[in-house]
């Protein structure tokens, strides 16, 4: 499979598939395709009935993914302004992509989801879902706005805004916390939500907060 990113402001990821090659994505992302492309569903059954109900009813994630089979071309977009990156995963390499950011992945990439706990503070952050992708294979994702990449050494940490994290290596840990704005009771009352990410591994941040720019396909 070949993936080419076309356009800059609201780009598309154009995949060219050989006969029998398959890719998957969330429903509603396809922009155009070759009539020769086959279509099907990839059902998500990880975690059994309760796992599925948690993902779909609580997390708002789809029951199934859409699957496209070559030969031919097919283009995808999240229909929002944002940089798109194409990543090749080695066998066994795992990465985590923020919910509603994955554009496409080859069928050799194993797909799973997990929940990042929020701080649980009343009226504040309740956590979010990430897609876990495990190689071998190729995938593409789209951020909100620009994408900034950082490589953290083992034990190296940085604090990021709640909505800024778009992708990371699975080895990078993420933990939500409330960042006090100064000391005392007032400082804690005014605290804002942030994530502490700790290496080793790559971290990708986006410059727009999805909660303020929610457009983007089914998400």
């Amino acid at each position, binding site marked *: 499979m070949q993936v080419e990113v076309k356009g*800059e*402001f609201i780009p598309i990821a154009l995949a060219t598939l050989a006969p029998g090659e398959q890719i998957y994505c969330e429903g509603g992302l396809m922009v155009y395709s070759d009539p020769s492309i086959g279509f099907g569903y990839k059902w998500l059954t990880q975690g059994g009935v309760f796992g599925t109900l948690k993902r779909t009813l609580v997390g708002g994630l789809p029951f199934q993914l859409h699957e496209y089979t070559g030969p031919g071309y097919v283009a995808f977009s999240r229909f929002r*302004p*944002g*940089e798109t990156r194409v990543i090749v995963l080695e066998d066994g390499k795992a990465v985590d992509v923020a919910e509603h950011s994955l554009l496409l992945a080859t069928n050799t990439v194993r797909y799973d989801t997990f929940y990042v706990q929020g701080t649980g503070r009343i009226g504040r952050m309740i956590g979010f879902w990430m897609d876990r992708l495990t190689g071998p294979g190729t995938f593409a994702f789209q951020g*909100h*706005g*620009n994408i*900034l990449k950082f490589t953290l050494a083992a034990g190296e*940490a*940085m*604090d*990021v*805004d709640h909505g*800024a994290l778009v992708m990371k290596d699975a080895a990078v840990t993420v933990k939500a916390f409330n*960042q*006090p*704005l*100064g*000391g005392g009771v*007032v*400082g804690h009352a*005014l605290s*804002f939500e*942030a994530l*502490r990410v700790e290496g080793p591994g790559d971290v990708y*941040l986006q*410059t*727009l*907060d999805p909660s*303020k*720019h929610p457009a983007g396909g089914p998400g």
Partner: protein
Amino acid sequence: MEADSVGGIAPAVLVTLRHGEKVLAAHGLMLYKEHQVQVHRRTMKSLGVSRTHLMGMHALGDSEESYFFAEFEGPGHVSFSRDKGGEVRVLQLAPGQTIRLRDGHLICFDESVRYYPMVLAQYQSPVPDANGQRATTYLFADELTGPGTIVYQSYGNILSFNLQPGEAMRTSVAGLLACANTVGLRIDWLASPAMASTGPVPLPVLDITGPGMVLVHSGT
């Protein structure tokens, strides 16, 4: 502090702070920071802005002024984003140099910069509403006086003008992004084409007279 704009679809600014250096930003603009950068609360009162003045601004209308800023203390990097498209500019203010920036566009500024929120201009609607009242619109701005660095973001692109003494230009009310405190501002009215139901509605514009810098942005 050193500030660099990271360009593209939705630009961000990357600030590098030396040990003990401080940068102030509106609450909620931080994109990321290094772990060792400390976060404090900086009240408007500590910047010389009285609570009475702020309450007066809020009473006038849609002023976005908060009662505090988030203060980030180095050493380390901190990045900010206003979560929108538009040019990000870094401006070094000379000692005593003052710029008036429309509210909602300031990203961050050096601790050495003097900050004061103000009303840049105001106008009353020439056409009464259904209750017979003529609504007053206030144009709020952040007045920033050097020395120090400020970072701001426009809607769309920024066009820069430097007016000579007595030289004049006209902008739409939304088009003015910032101006020096040396320029004169006056509201003028343009008659617009007749509208079917409401009749002719004059259009407010800003007449600006030099000397001084004027920044206009292309989006609203």
